[in-house]
């Protein structure tokens, strides 16, 4: 779990440093070219979220496999 916490912390840090710099520049960034960047962010979050969950399932499975080999 520890490595995921690090990833989340990095993501949050990026988000907060962006928004802390200037809220208006964040808006400018996302409002540019017809708000298409909102869609890209949303699509990225959906894919990253599913990826992280699948990765967690994968690591659970790996643990089971390891136990089986040890037995």
């Amino acid at each position: 779990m520890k490595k995921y916490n690090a990833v989340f912390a990095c993501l949050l840090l990026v988000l907060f440093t962006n928004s802390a710099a200037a809220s208006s520049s964040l808006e400018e960034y996302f409002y540019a070219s017809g708000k298409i960047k909102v869609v890209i962010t949303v699509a990225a979050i959906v894919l990253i979220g599913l990826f992280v969950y699948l990765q967690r399932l994968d690591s659970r499975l790996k643990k089971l496999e390891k136990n089986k080999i040890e037995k």
Partner: protein
Amino acid sequence: MKLWLKILCAVLLFYALLSSFYHPLAPGGLTVDIEKLVPGANTFVYSGYNTHFKDHSNDGLQFFVSSGSHYYPTEIIEVIDNNHAKVNVVLPDTLPSEEIAFYANTPTDGTVYIMKPMDISAFVFHQNYTNGSVPVKVANDQHQNFGYPFQVIIFESIRNLMWHVPMWFTMFVIMFISFIQSIHVLSATGRENMLDSSMIYVQSGIHDRKASASAETGLIFCILGLITGSIWARFTWGAWWTNDPQLNGAMVVFLMYVAYFILRNSVNDEEKRARLAAIFNIFAFVLLVVLLMVMPRFAEGLHPGKSGNPAFSSYDLDSSLRMVFYPAVFGFILLGYWIYNLRLRIKILESNEEI
């Protein structure tokens, strides 16, 4: 899960991904750079979005200023590019209606219009006074190819329809599986006296694992729906969180399912845990239906389809949007079911390990 279902899932998701970025946004009117209208000559720059002013500068490009259902012709001074044109309109000092709109007509885009709050104090309004107006055939929604409907605040972010909304549809379906499995848990333990008790334990145990695996998968989609919705809200409604009934309902549902897992983890006896969690889950699903499907329809809110805000289906008459939206929803539901299936099998393997 059958292989053809997995392939169907992949195809549908690919189609959803493609259609969410590939199809153009329908043309629309953006703004006019004028704050005050006066009787006589008014010159302004008309800004459109995805329009084709330049392409039709010699055939069929027209601009009108309307007052109610009456139209005043304009003179095109300069077509700057496809989305900008400088026009001049001469208005009389008496107009029939205070509802002023700015229309642009091209053969490709059909008619687009802008309604902008404006200082119109220089005019006198009289219902029957229609001097200077011309008859115009307004051709709404003339664009031929499928495009996302143009909405002034939403713009391109309408494409989120393919990402944000399927999350909630998937959550409903997966949570419904969880609900059904919870009922099975209770009915299996209810037959305790009639059958061999070890048999019962196995039955209610597998239903309990199905219920918790599906609730976990549903919770993932709920979290994704909350985060994506929050980002969309920030850049259309202006805040990360608004007091919309659907948002608050979704948050309550999220907390409820978190509580479901806290409840599960706090009971050690497996049989007792199965029954307690099943009862909680049944109530949680009923509340989910009430909070997300019933309540928002009776309250004021910002989501489409609620309290005077039209749902997306009212923008496209030939329902071409449905033809890409429902495959996207179905693709995500299949993906959710697949993930649930994997989670369940891991759960069963883990429980075998413990014995």
